């Protein structure tokens, strides 16, 4: 699988780079248009905005799940739009870790099996450190304080614990980019803080880029940059993004 395009020059210094992209769902009046968006490596970016403003759509474009109708979006220096389905899938499996609001753990797998799931469903995904997959998963579980929960099923865990397992699943392939869609949306305030601290700690320790879609204003202070999606789309981009110096 070649993740690097031939004959197309991108700013390889950016983790995400989008130029002049538009996207419209079939049979929908909603249209997402972004002139330019760049996310630097290891940047911690929050995307906020009202429901229906297109935050999750942008996240899916960044993940290569959706393809823009026009324009180009590159992920880790690879133009996602020009890749075929398989290469986009492999790019997603190897370079991107995803965390969801509903955790989306498979109820019929144990905690450790859920964490190792990316290795099972995509043969191109391999442990970068060439360790035993169980070792990597156990290390992650230990780092999130769930070492003794390895053989439990998701239904036996609290919501906060389930989200921690979901984060481990996103981290197991050591991706360069973590995309989290409302990761604290289903958690109580105490767990929200813990999960965000965990995400920051783990991504910082691995020098990973973190992009989080959230509604929760109380979580924004720790991010390097916050994009208010409503104003971002209504005004010239990217000037309206609220930046926070790191």
């Amino acid at each position, binding site marked *: 699988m070649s993740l690097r395009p031939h004959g197309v020059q991108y700013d390889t210094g950016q983790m995400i780079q989008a130029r002049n992209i538009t996207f419209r769902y079939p049979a929908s009046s909603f249209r997402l248009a972004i002139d330019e968006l760049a996310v630097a490596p290891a940047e911690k970016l929050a995307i906020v905005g009202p429901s229906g403003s297109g935050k999750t759509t942008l996240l899916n474009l960044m993940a290569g799940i959706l393809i823009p109708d026009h324009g180009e979006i590159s992920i880790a220096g690879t133009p996602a739009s020009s890749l075929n*389905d398989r290469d986009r899938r492999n790019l997603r499996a190897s370079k991107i870790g*995803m965390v969801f609001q509903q955790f989306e753990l498979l109820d*019929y*797998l144990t905690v450790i099996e859920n964490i190792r799931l990316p290795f*099972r*469903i995509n*043969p191109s995904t391999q442990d970068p450190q060439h360790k035993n997959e169980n070792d990597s998963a156990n290390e992650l579980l230990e780092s999130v304080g769930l070492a003794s929960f390895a053989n439990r099923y998701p239904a036996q865990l609290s919501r906060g614990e389930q989200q921690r397992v979901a984060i481990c699943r996103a981290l197991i392939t050591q991706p360069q980019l973590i995309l989290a869609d409302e990761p604290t949306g289903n958690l109580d305030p105490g767990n929200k803080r813990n999960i965000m601290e965990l995400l920051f700690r783990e991504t910082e320790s691995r020098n990973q880029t973190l992009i989080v879609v959230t509604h929760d204003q109380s979580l924004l202070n720790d991010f390097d940059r916050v994009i208010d999606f409503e104003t971002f789309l209504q005004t010239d981009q990217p000037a309206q993004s609220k930046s926070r110096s790191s």
Partner: protein
Amino acid sequence: MKGILFLAWRYVCFHKTKTLILIACIFLTAILPIAIRVLLSRFENSLVQRADATPAMIGAKGSSLDLTLHGLYFDRPPTQTLPYAEVKRIRATGLADPVPVYSAFQAASFPIVGTSLNYFDQRHLRIQTGQSLTTLGDCVVGIEVANSLQLKPGDSLLSDRENILDIAGKYPLKMNVAGILQTTGTPDDKAVFVDLKTAWVIDGYGHGHQELQNETDEAKVISRDNNQVVASAAVLPYTEITEQNIDSFHFHGSDDDFPVSAILAFTDSEKDNTILEGQYGGSDSDLQFVRPSLVVRELISVMFRIKRFFDANATLIGVSTLLLLILVMLLSAKLRTSEMETLFKIGCGRGTVIWLQAAELMIVVAVAGCLIATAAWAVNFYADDLLRWWI
């Protein structure tokens, strides 16, 4: 593929109830027609083999099916019997080896079959333990009778009383078990064989009692002249034939008139068989000639006409089960949309997601298939036992 199979296996293991219900649906739908097919095929073979080994059968006029089933399987006797003289007549023609069968009584619910020693030769019956019939009152039992009643040579076996309320009825006879037959897998395993004369004794045509010529007890003798003593009811007949009393056993009348329920005629050629058949062709004859193989094949054709109805029924049930399975899979796919979407988002191909569900179905079908194969093998292996127990 390994990962997909792992996930599919974990899914079916986790959802045990759903999986077991699906497996049971497939298993029950498939095993019934398979078992019926195996059993019918074996039953057909067994029927045809025994019928083909009996070229002809002669009995009183009536249902040819009843006569055939009685002669081959010792089923309930025909309402009419035929005289033993017919056996002698057939033997005199030299067209066949006539083997009489008289089966009107039971012992411990097993049929008592009065016959001649020729029967054992014609049916290739071999003694497993003990010896063959040698004396009046002896019996040779099939292996299932021996196992069921735990009999061994030297034991005795009492014939069943016809009607327990009929105190003036025929006395049961205590028979001596002379031998036990080898397993044959035929109705012979479930029969008690006695000499024809012993069967007539049970039926009251012959009996033994104490010597009355010198009897002084007037209560036992009604009248007496030079040649004949008329005994009263106070003289009890013997209910067991022993070395001491065997000489007192005698038959009243000519054995030509004694009954047999069927004659198995073992002819050497089709020509002899046809000639013999011609002797019973007249409308004034009280007897009938049947070819068991024809009667049995007619019975089988009726059986298979009924089986076609079951086959159609099984096909409909199979189609219903298939549709039900498709419905379950579609509903399951709908319920698992979110799960499949997650798998896609984290790097699983759309095709792989479909393969995952196909693999789950394949596991269920494979397990059901293994169970069906095992059950079919068991039915095939135990078919003879099942048929013996069932029929």
